[in-house]
């Protein structure tokens, strides 16, 4: 005789999340993502000493700057790889349709997947960048603990927000794609556009020199691209040079404005993804 037990909502979300994690681990994406982040964090932390030939670590601001520069490429890519299949994969396998006949709501399915994919990326980012911070704390050039911790807290927090933003973008594309291959294709194109092409266009806009109006437009456009937002937040937070962004923007942003725009992106995408899922027919 089977025993039927009533499950509270959170437990269902957890059931879905653990299955997703298991799936990602078996797919080896989790291993790849962890390896990349650890390699990246350690390389960036020790890069200076390798060049100098001595064990003198680079300054806090240059570590944060180089981690930020490379994270802008890697975090969206890792998020895409981890989550592009989330819906289109289940649709191809026929399990999404089946799942929807179960006593689970679409919101619970979405929450479970997000918990799993967000959790994997959070663990990878926090552990790797955290170890980078620990190395600076112990062997660093004598920057204060407060400085190091706050810069890394901002880096890790904003990296996680960027990760979740790209997970949600992947979900959206996954929900709207008919095939896995098409989903991953569109997402890589989007990645390429947001991370590389977008900045080139901004530069062109500036070079075209339309005066005050174009500077204003560029500033606005930076707020409209989550990867640029992420860069700006961390450069500002570590008072590091803005790099290519510095060239673009003469305007002084405030950190709260950047952070709240970032959160607005996240909330907006979450709302939109949920809506698309709720409206989706199977």
């Amino acid at each position: 005789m089977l025993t039927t037990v009533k499950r509270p909502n959170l437990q269902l979300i957890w059931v879905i999340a653990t299955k997703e994690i298991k799936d990602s681990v078996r797919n080896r994406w989790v291993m790849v993502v962890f390896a990349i982040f650890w390699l990246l964090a350690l390389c960036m932390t020790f890069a200076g000493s390798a060049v100098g030939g001595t064990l003198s670590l680079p300054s806090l601001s240059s570590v944060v700057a180089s981690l930020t520069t490379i994270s802008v490429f890697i975090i969206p890519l890792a998020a895409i790889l981890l989550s592009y299949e989330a819906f289109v994969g289940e649709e191809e396998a026929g399990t999404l349709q089946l799942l929807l006949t179960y006593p689970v709501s679409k919101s619970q399915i979405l929450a479970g997947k997000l918990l799993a994919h967000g959790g994997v990326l959070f663990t990878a980012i926090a552990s790797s960048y955290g170890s980078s911070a620990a190395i600076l704390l112990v062997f660093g050039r004598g920057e204060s603990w407060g400085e190091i911790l706050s810069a890394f807290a901002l880096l890790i927090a904003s990296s996680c927000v960027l990760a979740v933003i790209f997970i949600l973008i992947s979900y959206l594309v996954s929900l709207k794609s008919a095939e896995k291959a098409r989903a991953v294709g569109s997402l890589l194109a989007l990645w390429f556009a947001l991370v590389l092409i977008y900045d080139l266009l901004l530069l062109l806009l500036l070079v075209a020199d339309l005066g005050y109006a174009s500077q204003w437009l560029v500033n606005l456009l930076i707020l409209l691209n989550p990867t640029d937002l992420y860069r700006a937040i961390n450069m500002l937070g570590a008072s590091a040079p803005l790099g290519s962004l510095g060239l673009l923007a003469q305007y002084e942003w405030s950190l709260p404005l950047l952070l709240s725009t970032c959160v607005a992106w996240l909330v907006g995408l979450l709302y939109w993804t949920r809506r698309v899922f709720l409206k989706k027919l199977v």
Partner: protein
Amino acid sequence: MSQMAVTFNQVSHYFDELRALNDLSFSLPGGKLMALLGHNGAGKSTLIKMILGLLDPCQGEVSVLGQTQNPASKAASTDIGYLPENISFYDKLTGHEVLSYFAALKGVSARAVAPLLEEFGLAYAQHKAVKGYSKGMKQRLGFAQAILARPRLLLLDEPTVGLDPQASQFIYHKLKQLTDQGCTAIVCTHELQLVEPQLDLALVLGRGKRLAFGTLDELVLNCGLGVHMAHPALAGLVATHPLLQSFYRDGDLICPVSQREVLMKYLTLECQLFDVKVTLPDLAQVYHAKMAQMQVMSELGLSLTSGEL
């Protein structure tokens, strides 16, 4: 009404312009096995999805296990077991993990999983990734998934596709057990010979319309096909019994189902034939007759009115 497991009341469903279900009505009593038949694209899967609440009726009303179905209230969902067509599950998980996952979502104890895998002959492969399963193994896993929570209504979309004859037989044997215990089953299939001995009722769909609904006997009765009667002595008797002539074709007698009793009586009483071999039309013949009728009607430009042909 309360003992009806599924009722469709003048239900239509459109995919944009396409009318996938057209003014469909039927009532399926509880504890019965209904075969859902029809050509590719007839609307069978659409009908099943409407019972599940995955699709809304554009017109009409669907009621399932005594409740009017709307997707907002999925109260009945633990009571319904579903096997979708072409399911391939999660490649990277093992059979045991897949079934445990669905058990957890339905609130079924994890202890139920191993015996079920055993029963479905999957115990030996339960710790292998589903990716390495054959089509039939996946199908068995899917069926085990459908009956996990002891559903009151089972919806199986082509459950025996890719199964070997023994496995198909096992599925229908299991289904019989379940229906005997009061479970209602709707089996959508193209394998007419397999389902014929098992069904209580059949619903034949054609282009979204109901072409026929009823027990096999009722279908035979209203499809206009004849009963075959064979006996070696018939050829000789036809000359002396003019009444037989009108039924005589190629060595056999073929008569409408409605006249079968009378003709049998005539053969025994008047002709002293006692061991006449009687063959009723089978499900496949009924099916083909219905499809042919649909074809003719549409070629003549006659619209298929609601109800049966």
